[in-house]
């Protein structure tokens, strides 16, 4: 076996760029109306409360304007009428890869998912277009009472936990795209970790878009009960299509007293995907939530993971890496809402703009009245590779009262010609020198990723740097 085949995470863009021609049994057709919603509810066999909930959400979606008064005008290029909102084969998610339809199974094999599952994961869910085709949790983990299944299964089988938190962290009307997701969501994970249970290995979801003119709207809800710990990782790919594809997820995390959740994303959508995702966590007393977010793919990503620090001494963290190449706009950031005393938050964001790429950081830090001992620290660093690259930073910080402290620092830098010459003089090519510098720039953040991801990340960065010089 060569070293290349040993690499665990084969999700670079070229490797994701393939597709099988799959005819879906269930197809809601193009366009979005109230009939689309009834179709989805009927196919999924969902209860009436969710039908009503979805219809209401659609009304909210239709009533809300595009946020183009602050966001990119590129949003106007999404034609909602041309998108297919639900595509699925009708089968239940299998517990065994052998039962997964052949082409879908081959897709995930090419992406290396079953192999990773064997090596270091506690559970895997693999979503193909609108529904999960595989969902399994290691027996030992299941026996601890951990629930890990799709959102539909979650709302049908575990309504008592699901309904308590669903839509509570991110209300339907939070923004236009959270409303869209609320109307047509399908797939995603539902996770419940019982009190005191520490899930040793990560749970992983893999999202695959295979169909053209399609929108993927997974919905994830993770509840870590008191004193529990869990790490969730997600990856995603899609083949390159001529037309724009939409991915609009909603992810809600609830960390109850003393719980810890780590949520790791390596986003590597192909460059035609609009990736408009709402992610937020609710951290109760002494809970810790950490979003590790890495955006390499997509045409336009708009994603600002947030933590509402609701309980005393809760802690929120966002670690973010964005890489914007030609034709890409990575509009990412973080939100930290302090709502209790002695809550702390930390945001570290690094972005790299290459070629004509554009990276934007938007941040929101809010420390309301009468809180004591709250701290926020924000650091944003941007690296520009070419003279055509662009970077923006737009933080907004509100602090009320004494006894709290917020610090924000941002910098923009380049790799200087002198640095490159110095490294070339030691025998490295310009591209090698560039890669080394870029990896150096993100190195301290990459180290915070789980080992399996950090290796892959470095490789992805090298790949993006090739051909970026000159």
């Amino acid at each position, binding site marked *: 076996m060569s070293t290349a085949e040993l690499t665990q995470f084969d999700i670079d863009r070229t490797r994701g760029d393939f597709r099988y021609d799959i005819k879906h049994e269930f197809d809601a057709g193009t366009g979005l109306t109230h009939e689309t919603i009834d179709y989805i509810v009927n196919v999924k066999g969902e209860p009436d409360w969710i039908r009503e909930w979805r219809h209401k959400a659609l009304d909210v979606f239709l009533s809300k304007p595009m946020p183009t008064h602050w966001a990119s005008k590129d949003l106007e290029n999404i034609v909602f009428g041309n998108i297919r909102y639900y595509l699925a084969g009708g089968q239940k998610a299998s517990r065994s890869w052998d039962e997964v339809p052949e082409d879908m199974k081959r897709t995930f094999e090419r992406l290396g998912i079953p192999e990773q599952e064997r090596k270091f994961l506690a559970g895997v869910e693999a979503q193909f277009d609108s529904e999960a085709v595989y969902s399994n949790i290691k027996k030992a983990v299941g026996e601890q009472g951990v629930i890990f299944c799709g959102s539909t299964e979650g709302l049908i089988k575990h309504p008592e936990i699901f309904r308590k938190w669903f839509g509570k962290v991110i209300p339907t009307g939070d923004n236009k795209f959270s409303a869209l997701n609320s109307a047509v969501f399908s797939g995603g994970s539902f996770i419940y970790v019982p009190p005191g249970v520490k899930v040793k290995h990560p749970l992983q979801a893999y999202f695959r878009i295979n169909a053209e003119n399609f929108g993927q709207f997974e919905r994830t809800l993770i509840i870590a009960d008191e004193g529990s710990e869990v790490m969730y990782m997600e990856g995603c790919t899609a083949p390159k299509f001529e037309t724009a594809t939409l991915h609009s997820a909603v992810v809600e995390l609830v960390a109850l007293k003393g719980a810890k959740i780590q949520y790791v994303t390596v986003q590597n959508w192909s460059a035609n995907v609009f990736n408009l995702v709402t992610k937020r966590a609710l951290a109760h007393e002494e809970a810790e939530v950490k979003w590790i977010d890495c955006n390499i793919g997509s045409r336009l990503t708009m994603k600002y993971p947030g933590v509402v620090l609701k309980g005393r001494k809760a802690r929120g963290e966002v670690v973010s890496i964005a890489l914007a190449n030609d034709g890409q706009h990575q509009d990412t950031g973080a939100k930290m809402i302090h709502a209790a005393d002695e809550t702390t938050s930390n945001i570290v964001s690094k972005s790299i703009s290459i070629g004509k790429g554009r990276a934007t950081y938007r941040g929101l830090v809010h420390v309301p009245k009468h809180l004591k001992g709250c701290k926020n620290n924000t650091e944003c660093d941007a690296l520009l590779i070419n003279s055509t690259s662009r970077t923006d930073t737009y933080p907004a910080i509100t602090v009320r009262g004494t006894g*709290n*402290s917020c610090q924000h620092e941002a910098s923009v830098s380049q790799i200087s010609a002198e640095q490159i010459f110095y490294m070339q003089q030691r025998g490295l090519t310009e591209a090698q020198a560039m890669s080394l510098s870029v990896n150096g720039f993100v190195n301290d953040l990459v180290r915070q990723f789980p080992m399996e991801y950090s290796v892959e990340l470095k490789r992805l960065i090298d790949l993006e740097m090739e051909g970026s010089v000159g």
Partner: protein
Amino acid sequence: MMTSVLEPMTDTPAAPTRLLSAGPAAPGQEAAWTQFTKIPMPTRTDERWRFANVKDLDLSSYLPPAPVDEAVREALLVRSRGLEKSAGRMVFANDQLLTREAYSEELSRIGVIWLPLEQAMIEHPNLFQQYFMREEAILGGQKFATLHASQVRTGTFLFVPRGVEINLPIEAFHWLHGDNASCFPHTLIMAQDMAKVTFIDYYESADAEAPGLACGVNDLWLGAGASVTYVCAQNWSSKALAFQINATVVGRDARARSLFAQLGARHLRTESVSHLRAQGGRSDMLALTVADAAQEIDARTFQIHEAPNTSSDLLYKNSLDDTARTIFSGLIRVNPVAHQTDAYQKVRNLLLSDEAEANSAPGLEIEADNVRCTHGATSGQIEQEELFYLMSRGISKRAAQKLIVHGFLQEVIARLEEPAIGARLTEMVQAKFAAHA
């Protein structure tokens, strides 16, 4: 006393015409008035007005500027206290020129034009055309810029020709007098190549408690190698609504320095834009704010690097007490051509009360190469250790706090490198501390 038979006698004076129904100040200002009436009032959802209490901006109760009588004139002239040494001063009240006094021969040097605005408009129509309000208000205050353009009656017009250096500062005092009075101070400074000048505007209300409206514009134009230092010491009444819109255009190798000391006003909105228009230009943008009671001080800034090798450095410091609110929203923009830009932006908020609120939104938009840009925003309070140290030396808590705030603001004043002006500003800051129980 004679009464004209043609004028009917009335016991009660007619209700005064409000500003909003008065129309433009003069026929030439009709276009601006039309624009003003067409532009809607700002709304909260406008990004450029984010955080601001836009409901504070109601203009309906104010009256157009009315002349002051002789007794008021005398009193205000006495109260117009600036620096010990200056090259000259003009004093205005309710947009009426009270006096113009030149103390220095420098001002009569060939070519320096230092006139009330309305006189310059007639005597130097070309210069006026070329520079008067030529940069559009781009930070959201276009409505108030057009209001100003439709109402402005006077102000300072200062043209310093090539190579002329005016060593002593020139001063202007703008007074607002009477309840619900309004004024529209204007300052236009043009420094030609290698010219140098320092200028101070003092904004004051005759009655520190009277409601009023002030809507000022100050534009600075710097030719190649010119150096302009501009200071605005704003101390409107604690019930005034105030707007201040600035554009600074910096030419090749020129150096602009501006400092806004914000002490007064119930609600103040300032917009300050530096255009780094040619190679080697530099702009230092400074501000200090002492906000207390229910003051809202809303500052928007823009550092636009339009040419290579330019630099800008912004430092805004706010001290906030009681229920005061401050907003700082600033953007550094580096255009694609502006390689080798150095741009810095720092805002620091010192919160002295549990009810105070500081909003910071420092922004960067970078599209060029070899750029060094950083920004930072901090919000915090006086460190207990620091306070304790001073108190252990026998200083009361209140005095120690004031000392620390004073030190906090001093960094901004020091950056001006003008000791006499710095001393005057420090005095004004101290006076505000003293007035605060």
